[in-house]
């Protein structure tokens, strides 16, 4: 119990809970649209944004050179997500665009951080997450963004489902398809930036997608998949963070490994149940 009174532990658990609940909301829409890897492409663009923010902070002579890293990541991630969405809606091969952003983002990030007088080591916290360094300011920013993601992702669930399920039909009904597509893209970008501190750019997609993949084994409904994925995401992040309080393990990687184990486990159990080997 004494651990829970530690402000650092409180901040880690709070950020883990917020990100764990918010990320699968966007993940559900991305899986629905069969764009599960969008997080990877946009995540790497966000890394370039981190480096650009770092460069801007250095150029402005700020005492804390990474003060503009997160704003830079948000701007770059939104730009990357909007570009991917625009290309997709024009019928371009989305996977090729994502691959170009993937490589271009990480290469630009490495170049810019060098120009800012930093080293690749400065990027490691963003690549693999650095939840143990979050401040109360980080917590409040994460809380505000997570609440926005939850409010928009759940508040417009019906319309976002309609657009991601069958865009052609949605257009025939008069729904503002382009606007709703942009909402999904921007939500994804903001989620990636928020989750970056917890699991890092390299694993950010996993936190959005794995809870959805697990929930898919347990329910047939889109709504229940989303709510269940939110719960699974929260349990995974809280469990991962809690274990690292006593074990010297990297939180982001542990959360993802726990998610993979849960996915494999639920896949095996549901497959056995379906074959009738285990009473359901």
């Amino acid at each position, binding site marked *: 119990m004494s651990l829970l009174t530690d402000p650092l532990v409180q901040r880690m658990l709070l950020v883990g809970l917020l990100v764990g609940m918010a990320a699968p909301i966007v993940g559900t829409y991305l899986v629905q649209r069969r764009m599960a890897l969008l997080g990877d492409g946009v995540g790497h663009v966000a890394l370039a944004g981190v480096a650009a923010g770092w460069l801007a902070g250095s150029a402005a002579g700020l005492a804390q050179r990474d003060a503009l890293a997160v704003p830079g990541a948000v701007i770059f991630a939104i730009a990357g997500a909007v570009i991917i969405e625009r290309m997709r809606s024009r019928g371009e091969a989305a996977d090729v665009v994502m691959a170009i952003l993937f490589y271009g983002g990480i290469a630009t990030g490495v170049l810019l951080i060098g120009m800012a007088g930093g080293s690749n080591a400065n990027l490691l916290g963003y690549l693999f997450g650095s939840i143990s360094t979050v401040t109360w300011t980080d917590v409040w920013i994460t809380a505000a963004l997570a609440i926005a993601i939850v409010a928009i992702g759940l508040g417009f669930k*019906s319309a976002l489902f*309609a657009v991601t399920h069958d865009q052609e*039909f949605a*257009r025939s009904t*008069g729904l503002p398809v382009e606007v709703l597509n942009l909402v999904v893209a921007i939500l994804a970008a903001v989620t990636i930036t928020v989750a970056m501190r917890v699991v890092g750019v390299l694993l950010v997609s996993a936190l959005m997608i794995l809870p959805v993949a697990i929930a898919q084994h347990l*329910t047939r409904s*889109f709504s229940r998949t989303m709510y269940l994925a939110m719960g699974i995401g929260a349990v995974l992040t809280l469990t991962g963070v809690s274990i690292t309080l006593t074990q010297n393990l990297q939180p982001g990687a542990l959360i993802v490994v726990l998610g993979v184990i849960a996915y494999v486990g639920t896949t095996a159990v549901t497959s056995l149940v379906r074959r009738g080997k285990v009473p359901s």
Partner: protein
Amino acid sequence: MLALEAKNVRVSLQGTEILHGVSLDAAPGEVVALMGGNGSGKSTFVRAVVGAIPLHEGTIAMFGAPATPNSRKHLGYVPQRVSAAGGVSATAYEVVASGLLGYRALRAPRDAGDQIRAALRAVSVEDLATHDVTRLSGGQKQRVLIARALVRDPRLLILDEPMAGVDLQSQVALAHALGHLKEHGVAIVIVVHELGALTRLIDRAVVLEHGCVTHEGSPPPDLGVHALPGHDHEHAHEDEDPGAHSTLGLEGPR
């Protein structure tokens, strides 16, 4: 007043003109079959009418007003089955509920449950309401998509090859359902390869060839009888629905 009035519709996709000035209209209570071979432009025309792809030239009016997102509130559209395929499971109820959305209607009304169940019941899939649509047979999935269009209480119904992959008994039952809508004044435009069970329902056929109208009037007689139940098919449907031998009004294997 015409329910649909499309004039001189030209559509280009990736720089190639697909439709070269197609005109088609449908009056309330009229059933128009849009026919033609593969690649003739039938689906492209339908997608242009419902607003899924832009017009290069021409005009489309619904109920006397230019087609806009707002004027499509009276439109029910049943796309080809392949266009509706999400990566996350969704129940038939959720899919049909999405039909209640539209221009400035981003949420279904809270009390829409009866309306949704009635639409499912109209195509005899009410008992599949909680089933995952991705696991339904082709014919069942088709009926859910029709229910999604019916829940909008449409005055103009456009169906793109609803008979593809559906067994003949279900085709007959679907024809009865469409006949009911026709009696209630709904204008229906239906894309079909073969008239089959719809033969007696069709008022007029428009045949497209290479993006141009080549026939308008009575359905071509050879197409009218070719797919009637009992007719000896030479070509089986590629996407035949193996599990659904039920009719829309009768219980069958699910």
